[in-house]
């Protein structure tokens, strides 16, 4: 019996020992960074031959294997390989030859060769190669456009070529919505020059998805109006400061800020989309603020009445919490605004046209309606002339 079981017992013991030995390599403290050399990589044609009909699978496995090389280059930043040439160039030439339809190869090539190794010409080359193979790959179009915009400054140096590139991108997109996204992307890149509006495309998308009239939509609209009004105030204040530098007196009204020389200095190319200006009947006008109230200048500072009302409304939440605390400690609710003030609760001053009212046990702000409709915030309204009243 024992002799019959002995080989099996010996095998089980050895198997256990070997499994433990193998598993010991994966102990976290012992893991080391794997380095990789790509000097062995053959030419793309030879690689295809050596793949023995399994080009797709071989390319993916080689790609996964090369991740270690990528990690190494993050530190070393020198991908020269023996036999001449660059490791990443050789790697991605092989991968894109073995499976020209796999989009991540082109994306990784552009990232590793462009962002890591700083060879943006080669990175752009791989992206354009990818676009030839996959003309509807939105991510590749976007990445190529970013390369042209950021590293080649195409918008400034060759605006007509950049425009042609974007048109080509829009043409390649299959649906009208996708084509629209190209122009929104373009507008978003342009808006990056104006601080504070970077998130606007995101909120626009959220607004398009939200149920009209829902609390979500209301929240999104408030967020967008807040970002827009801050941007408008920044721009108008900059113009007001410029006005003051150019003239002996500060501007007496916001209409003074529409002085052509000031606008030309601040916006040498074109007026910002979503800015506080609009062109109607061929003339430049100042828009109302995003809430529908006119901008004003007080003591040299540009203010938005709509923004001030919104800030007051936000403060109201804290005041109502304090009011509840007051009622809890005193054992009774104040019956008038004067009683609230008498109880020691500080009520901040309200903008013109607003007044506190006590409804049941909550303080609210009663205000007159805006003289003009608030800015529309939908996707079609992102041109200066399309939105809001003057």
């Amino acid at each position: 019996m024992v002799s019959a079981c002995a080989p099996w017992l010996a095998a089980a013991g050895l198997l256990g020992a070997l499994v433990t030995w193998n598993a010991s390599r994966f102990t976290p403290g012992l893991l080391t960074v794997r380095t990789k050399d790509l000097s062995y990589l053959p030419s793309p044609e030879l690689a295809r031959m050596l793949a023995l009909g399994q080009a797709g699978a071989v390319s993916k496995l080689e790609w996964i294997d090369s991740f270690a090389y990528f990690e190494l280059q993050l530190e070393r930043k020198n991908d020269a390989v023996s036999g001449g040439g660059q490791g990443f160039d050789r790697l991605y030439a092989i991968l894109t030859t073995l499976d020209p339809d796999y989009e991540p190869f082109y994306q990784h090539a552009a990232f590793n060769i462009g962002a890591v190794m700083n060879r943006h010409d080669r990175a752009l080359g791989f992206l354009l190669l990818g676009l030839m193979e996959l003309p509807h790959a939105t991510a590749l179009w976007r990445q190529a456009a970013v390369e042209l915009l950021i590293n080649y400054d195409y918008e400034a140096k060759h605006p007509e070529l950049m425009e042609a590139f974007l048109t080509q991108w829009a043409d390649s997109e299959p649906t009208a919505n996708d084509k629209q996204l190209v122009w929104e992307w373009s507008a978003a890149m342009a808006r990056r020059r104006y601080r504070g509006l970077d998130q606007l495309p995101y909120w626009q998308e959220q607004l398009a998805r939200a149920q009209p009239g829902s609390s979500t939509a209301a929240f999104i609209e408030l967020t967008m109006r807040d970002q827009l009004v801050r941007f408008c105030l920044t721009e108008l204040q900059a113009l007001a400061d410029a006005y003051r530098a150019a003239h002996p007196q500060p501007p007496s009204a916001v209409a003074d800020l529409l002085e052509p020389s000031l606008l030309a200095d601040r916006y040498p190319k074109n007026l910002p989309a979503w800015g506080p200006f609009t062109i109607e009947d061929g003339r430049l006008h100042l828009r109302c603020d995003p809430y529908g109230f006119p901008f004003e200048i007080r003591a040299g500072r540009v203010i938005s009445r709509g923004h001030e009302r919104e800030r007051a409304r936000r403060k109201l939440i804290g005041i109502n919490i304090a009011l509840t605390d007051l009622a809890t400690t005193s054992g009774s609710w104040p019956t008038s605004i004067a009683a609230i003030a008498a109880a020691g609760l500080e009520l901040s001053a309200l903008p013109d046209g607003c007044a506190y009212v006590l409804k049941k046990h909550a303080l609210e702000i009663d205000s007159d309606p805006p003289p003009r409709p608030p800015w529309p915030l939908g996707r079609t309204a992102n041109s200066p002339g399309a939105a809001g009243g003057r």
Partner: protein
Amino acid sequence: MILVIAGATFREATRSRSFVLLLTLYALGVLLSRVGGWISGTDGGLITANLVMSLQSVFGVLVAVATGTALVHSEIQQKTLYTVLSRPVARWRFVVGKFTGLALALVCGQAAMLALGVLYLWATGGAVSGWLAVAGALTAMEVLVMAAVSLCWAAVSSPLLATVLCLATYALGHAVGSLPGLMYHLKGFQRPLCVAFASLVPDLSRFAYRDQAVHAIPIDMGDAGMRLVYGLCWICLLVTITVAVVRRKQL
């Protein structure tokens, strides 16, 4: 009589250990293929599909070579061949029957592999499209051509040597597909010489539609049909050669 031999060969092939073992290994490989997708940092669906389709080809060819090379040799070794040939059965019928049975077993194996692979891809959220079935059919034809190659090599050499020669033929068969891209390296007489040698090998790259199928890139059905006809032509040629060799063989 051909059908009787084919039926017996089919049963023998499907019951053979190498057949069942390789199918089991294929199933294990399919299960592990998802790991490649996980490591890649992408959603991994395409990578898993690539690996699954390649496994079908590689294991299919291994099954064809392992079973095909042992087919006639085991008959001789077990002396069952003499029982068959002592009857009024022409040798060509014996060879054709053997290949038909083997081909039937391999087609069943390929269908099972494809079904398992596609089911696994579907279950794991991988890239599944109808084109995978077309790719699977072309891979099955590749495997049948390799079965004919193994039968032919087994007829002229020992099983071990035939296995080595089969694997070399498989490598060459895929390599010749890439040859046109490398022709610019050759000069003078090298070119026609290379073309002549390459033309003697079945171009297995014609059956490698799997990479495009994974990306759901359509194939023209006429083109797919021509590829199948190309495979059938090679099978006919190789079986005919095998018949010719076996007819002259001293058993």
